[in-house]
């Protein structure tokens, strides 16, 4: 599976989220990218229920259940620093049955929706990150499809991102450094999205700084 980078683009000074997204997409279209439908990535948070926390004072763990429209038949479940499970879409139903052990923090549901663009062998997804009714930020996912080893194509990805993101080009994602020469997988993308969503959740309503 292809090498990808997921990053956040800060909202430009004095402009709204919508306008910044339009700026980005216009730059992409000028480069020659073509629109290819839409995408959506969402994330729900579950707390471990109080009754399962042992008496030794173990703090409850947070579990994230995520979906990605790129993989419509799958569901991703991950802990913050822990393993990522790729499951069937019926996993959501299972979570309902596990109500006693994991409680859904409905207010924390966060998602990113937007358009997909294709440029040569690159796939770019520019999305507006919303939590509830309010738009909290912008996510940009860039994927270079022919390359399966993440570390190999980082410089290539960065050069491409600079051509339309300019100064907002992010640094190398942390997942790349742990992967070394192993093949990139969808779980790595979801980890990047989870980190991004966490970052946005901690930010204030109108983010000004913070490039990952």
């Amino acid at each position: 599976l292809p090498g990808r980078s997921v990053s956040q683009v800060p909202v430009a000074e004095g402009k709204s989220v919508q306008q910044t997204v339009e700026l980005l997409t216009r730059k992409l279209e000028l480069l020659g990218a073509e629109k290819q439908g839409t995408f959506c990535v969402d994330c729900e948070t579950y707390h471990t229920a109080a009754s399962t926390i042992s008496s030794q004072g173990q703090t409850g763990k947070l579990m994230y259940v995520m979906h990605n429209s790129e993989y419509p038949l799958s569901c991703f479940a991950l802990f913050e620093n822990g393993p990522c499970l790729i499951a069937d879409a019926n996993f959501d139903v299972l979570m309902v049955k596990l109500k006693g052990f994991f409680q859904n923090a409905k207010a924390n549901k966060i998602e990113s929706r937007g358009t997909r663009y294709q440029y040569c062998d690159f796939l770019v997804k520019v999305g507006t990150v919303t939590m509830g009714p309010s738009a909290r930020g912008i996510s940009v996912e860039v994927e270079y499809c022919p390359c399966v080893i993440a570390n190999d194509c980082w410089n290539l990805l960065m050069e491409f991102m600079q051509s339309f993101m300019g100064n907002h080009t992010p640094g190398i994602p942390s997942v790349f450094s742990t992967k070394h020469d192993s093949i990139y997988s969808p779980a790595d993308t979801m980890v990047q999205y989870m980190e991004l969503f966490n970052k946005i959740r901690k930010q204030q309503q109108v983010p000004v700084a913070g490039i990952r």
Partner: protein
Amino acid sequence: LERLSNLVGKPSENHPLHNSGLLSLDPVQDKTPLYSQLLQAYKWSNKLQYHAGLASGLLNQQSLKRSANQMGVSAKRRPKAQPTTLVLPPQYVDDVISRIDRMFPEMSIQLSRPNGTSAMLLVTLGKVLKVIVVMRSLFIDRTIVKGYNENVYTEDGKLDIWSKSNYQVFQKVTDHATTALLHYQLPQMPDVVVRSFMTWLRSYIKLFQAPCQRCGKFLQEGLPPTWRDFRTLEAFHDTCRQ
């Protein structure tokens, strides 16, 4: 009635089109446009013959013969000893290929003969790409380059030697590989040719990591440097090479 029948003219015996001309008499042109299709086919094949004649005249000016066979020479002048390079035992071809397989650790070559005596190789270069090479004895006939994650087999498990890659970068590399197999030519020593071709192919291990030697950048029109110089094996963009 007899007088009238004598007045009806005989069908012209000098009809130049013979039976096909009779097709033109079919009144139902909409449902069976046979005659117009026949005319078009005839014109097309005439044009094809004409263009092929022109092309062969032009191509004969450049001697691009990769094998030592002398095809154009008449039977009288053909040397009595058959040229040996086209008729090599399959075991010899297998040996050469397995020796080349051991030459480079990051390159692995699998040989199979699903369609008769002609060998088909599946070359896997690291985790970057896969190449399908179709051979004719020890001469390389065609190559197709595909990505590491692309499927190289057809639905019934055989090696797929026809479909192109889905990615533009590998379609470009396929074109370059075809240029390479026309470039490396030594009619009397085909195993040296195969070795040179594989050495050239191996330089693609850094397809996504090497910048262009001329402009210094990684991307040009969305493509990494896909050209590898035949002598120095340096990486260039297709538009940057001399």
